[in-house]
């Protein structure tokens, strides 16, 4: 088989995104509905790149208050102490749990940033009609989809600390204003990954003849 075979869409076929039945609509531009599962047929996610860019840019903007504002405020006998995501990681590191500090650092800082960079790169390479590194780009997309959910970690950590440490007036923890921005970054980057259509990577062909990635 040759590596520059084009996708089903270029042969006038539409693959159902829900049940994967391969249909051959009479008019390729208006495929209608899947005869098996009834889902609306689309050759590619409509406006995939535009939606992905919009969500990536929104997430990048919200990433700033998510890190600058405190996510937790601890009140102990009248004295208040606020923690941002980074200072929470430093606190874990200083109290001796360097392994946990690393987990939180990866989930809360590196995964969201990595997703923004990776999705931007995927969008740019598709817009430039790149035919290079298709295997690597497809693998990068799968990785983004697979690990994206783990950045929700810090939101769960904050929620359960707030829920448990409520011993007023002795000691209590309140959520800071940053936690809602951080949650929004995670949700928006997940939606951005879902709106990107990986089949666009292959639509301009591939230069990897006979290569197995």
């Amino acid at each position: 088989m040759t590596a520059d075979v084009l996708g089903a869409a270029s042969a006038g076929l539409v693959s159902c995104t829900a049940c994967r039945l391969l249909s051959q609509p009479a008019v390729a531009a208006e495929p209608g509905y899947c005869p098996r599962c009834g889902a609306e047929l689309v050759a590619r996610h409509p406006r995939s790149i535009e939606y992905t860019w919009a969500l990536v840019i929104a997430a990048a903007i919200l990433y700033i208050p998510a890190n600058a504002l405190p996510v937790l405020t601890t009140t102990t006998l009248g004295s208040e102490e606020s923690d941002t995501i980074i200072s929470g990681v430093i606190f874990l590191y200083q109290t001796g749990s360097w392994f946990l500090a690393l987990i939180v650092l990866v989930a809360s800082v590196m995964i969201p940033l990595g997703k923004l960079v990776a999705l931007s790169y995927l969008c740019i390479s598709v817009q430039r009609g790149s035919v290079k590194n298709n295997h690597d780009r497809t693998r990068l997309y799968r990785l983004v989809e697979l690990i994206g959910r783990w950045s929700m970690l810090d939101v769960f950590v904050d929620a359960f600390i707030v829920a448990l440490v409520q011993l007023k007036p002795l000691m209590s923890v309140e959520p800071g204003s940053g936690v809602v921005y951080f949650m929004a970054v995670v949700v928006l980057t997940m939606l951005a990954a879902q709106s990107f259509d990986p089949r666009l990577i292959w639509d301009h062909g591939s230069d990897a003849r006979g290569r197995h990635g």
Partner: protein
Amino acid sequence: MRHLALDTMACPDCDLPQTIPPLPPGGSARCARCHETIARNPSDPIERPLALTVAAAIVFFVANTMPLMGLSAVGREATTTIIGGAHQMWLEGSELTALAVGFCAVIAPGGYIAFMLTVLLAVRHPPAPRWVADLLRFAAFMQPWSMNEVMLLGILVALIKISQLAEVVPGIGIYSVGVLVLLLAAVAATFDRHVVWTRVEWADGTLPPGDPDTPLAAGVPG
């Protein structure tokens, strides 16, 4: 509308059309171009995930009713449950965060389990009615937002962070969440939704073609 033979499909990741050869029980097929796994033939695709989903439903109930962890400091004690995490966030004025936590921790996993249970019961005797297709699509929508494993790690990190401030004791809820994570992973590993599609009545009113016990990969002329 014309459709192609059921053993022909396009890769969901790169759109390459290809014919899936008959797969042995437990076998899987990868895309010829991008190497994504595009077809599986689980050896017991209905009864095994059904049994695991029933178990997951029971454990889900336990995990959501039992305390996750308790705290004691200078003679005072407190406990929390999963929904307690979302509830306190709401009370403290972070309503959107509370909704996200509630959705990812309770509603999405619960919805996924409930829809899967209904779908698997309905397709035991094919052809299953059309609404099964809608439920299956809902279950697929819920799946990426069902974050039990992320929540479990979050609970453990919270436990260790709080232990710097006060004494914490893990509750039955934590162990239940751990078992739930394993069960849902087992459901995902034994279930293949394309087996269900071969047993559901078509949207255009026709019955699923061929012997319903024939897996998708065995191919039926279109």
